[in-house]
């Protein structure tokens, strides 16, 4: 286990501890839920049990992510001075975790408590080993939710307003949003949107339903738009 955390472009270490910890927490929660979410059927072969493959999957996720977490280069967080120097604090902290683990084991039973104790240990280790670059990386991950939001808004609007108008509007607004303001780029975005609709909906006839707005169009125009745009 090395304690070097670098900003070298070939080895991005930022966010590694955070990602491994989050993935491990999710995997542990899934493992804890295996008894509730899968069944063990009496009289069925071991390899044909409905629980067999989920156990392989979730068990492997926990095992390999824990090993990956252990092998990551990490550096202990620099705690405030009073925490480092106060013996009583370290004693109290160790005692707190021990009481929590024993309490969980007595309350839930040792087998059910094991994942919970493991979970608590992961959170404790993550808190201790997270680096400031992890927090900066988490902000970047969160910023992607904006693009996912744009995509979902596009998906929600197509059945209401129509594939062609929403695609044109989406391409133009998003092109504007990402910083292209020239006439050439705006025209390119518009032409691209129309081409995509013509190729996929009008020519290849992929399954995209007609919009609710098209219902208000007069007779022949209505069916033409529902079929082609």
């Amino acid at each position, binding site marked *: 286990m090395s304690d070097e955390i670098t900003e070298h472009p070939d080895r991005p270490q930022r*966010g590694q501890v955070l990602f491994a910890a989050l993935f491990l927490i999710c995997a542990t929660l899934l493992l804890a839920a295996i008894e509730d979410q899968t*069944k063990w059927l009496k009289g*069925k072969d071991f390899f*044909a049990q409905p629980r067999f493959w989920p156990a392989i999957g979730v068990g*492997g996720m926990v095992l390999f*992510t824990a090993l990956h977490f252990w092998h990551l280069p990490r550096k202990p967080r620099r705690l405030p001075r009073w925490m480092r120097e106060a013996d009583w604090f370290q004693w109290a902290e160790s005692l707190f975790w021990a009481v929590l683990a024993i309490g969980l084991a007595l309350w839930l039973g040792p087998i059910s408590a094991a994942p919970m104790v493991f979970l608590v240990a992961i959170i404790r280790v993550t808190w201790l080993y997270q680096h400031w670059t992890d927090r900066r990386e988490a902000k970047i991950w969160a910023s992607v939710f904006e*693009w996912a939001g744009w995509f979902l808004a*596009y998906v929600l609007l197509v059945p209401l307003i129509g594939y062609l108008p929403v695609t044109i509007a989406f391409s133009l607004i998003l092109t504007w949003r990402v910083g292209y303001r020239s006439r050439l780029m705006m025209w390119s975005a518009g032409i691209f949107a129309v081409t995509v609709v013509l190729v996929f909906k009008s020519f290849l006839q992929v399954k995209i339903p007609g919009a609710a707005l098209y219902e208000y169009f007069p007779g022949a125009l209505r069916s033409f738009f529902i079929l082609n745009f």
Partner: protein
Amino acid sequence: MDLIYDFLAQVQASSSVLARWDVVLALLVGSVGGVLIGAIPGVGPAVAIAILLPATFSMDPIVGLTVLLGIYGSSMYGGSIPAILINTPGTAVNALTTYDGYPMTTRGEARRALSLAYSSSFFGGIFSVVCLIFFAPILAKIAPMFGSREIFLAALLGIILVVTAHRKHTLIAAAMACFGIWLNTIGLHPASYSKRYTFDQSWLSGGVNLIVVVLGLFALSQAFTLLHGDDEKVRLTKLKGSFFQGFRELARHPRIAGISATFGVVMGMIPGVGEFTAQFMSYTYAQKSSKRPEDFGHGSSEGLIAAETANNAVPGAAMVPLLALGIPGEALTAMMLSVFYVHNVIPGPQLFQNDMDFVVALYLALLILNVLVVAFLLVATNQLIKVVKIPNRFLGVCILVLSFVGVYSLRNSLTDCIIAAAFGIFGFVMKRMQLPVVPIVLGMVLGGIMEVKLRSAMARVKTPLDFIDRPIAAILFGMIVLVLALHFRRVWLDYKERKTDEWQTSHASTSFPAILSRRRNYILTERGKRLRAKRKTFSRRLTDKD
């Protein structure tokens, strides 16, 4: 001799399948589209195949597969263009091309590098298809020997190879493969009709669709990455003259071209190995056997030939485990598998026995495709290189618009789009940290195959040794043990090497007391003697004895 006659009869029968207008159109669209997609850094065949997959479901299996195979086979030709001209690989597998291609461009030999790349790719592509066409009858004889346990072991070998191929990321790759296996188990268990990990949610009872995951992990995550990043300034070199000279130069290196193509074919056939290993092996071979190994990485034509020949020999060979056993070896063939399932064509030994025309038609399509691509590139390279100038964030907008078609047209479901967006964010995070996503897709596909095959195989197995009592099963088991043993040996050697490096480069301050002690000894003995001798003439004699 009979085999050849049989085969020629099959080629004749299969050519009628290819002589349809829609197949010809698919060939043209696949080849030109693939080159274009490969030439744009940041798109790549995985994104294009993921987006086009649902659109191909409404086509005939041969038409749909020809389009996808066209994109797969021709994208690497296109990918070499930005790799050589601007030092940015168009597709991930062209990374090795930049080593020798770009230095040639800086020397003013861009045209020579491009024509060498085209001719090597063409040779690799044709070599692999010709090999497979002649192997097809033998494969048809071997494939029926694969029962449930053999297919299970081959799928297991594929997963192990995919995981071990990610050196330095083996543990997280294994975790991701297990994640894929778990994703595949969500929903109703087909044998017992019991729910698994549905959390009583109706939208989970149908399971998680492979195509939705693939679109999220490859297309949406790529769109998010491009939208998040910055544009790069591109300066292109003007190219003048023809591109035929590469064929003459390639003819002067038949040994490197032949061996690299063989590496490509062999590595392509083994599930989970693919282009990177083939390229690495052929490049290392070419360097070791070259008269000028010092030129490698500085614009060596042999290096370029090795890299490009090996990667283009893979697509044809990668169809072997897919068609003969129904086992995809990588993400792209895993996506193609879903086209087979949608049309109720089950790849595997039965396909080779009952539908050999279809298999040969696919190989012939790949053969024609290579010819079409080279013809297109020889004529249109000067115009084609302009696509490199498309700004990155605009490409992100385009991929987002196209991803909608892929996800929404599948089942018109908002839930699918939300799941795809979630996997898009997950894929973005993985890309940021350079962690592998391919094991997730292969875990999903191979996990499903392993579950079914293990269940049926275990019904006839009494003791553990019965599982490997058939020759092919025993060979596959031996291969699994060998791969694992080699991997653990590699891990041990890496560990030893790391420890040696740490010891050799350890900072002086780590042995500070020792240094201090040596310094003190020096000051007290050697330096003291010299200084005292020097000062002897200017001062009175010391009273203490040395």
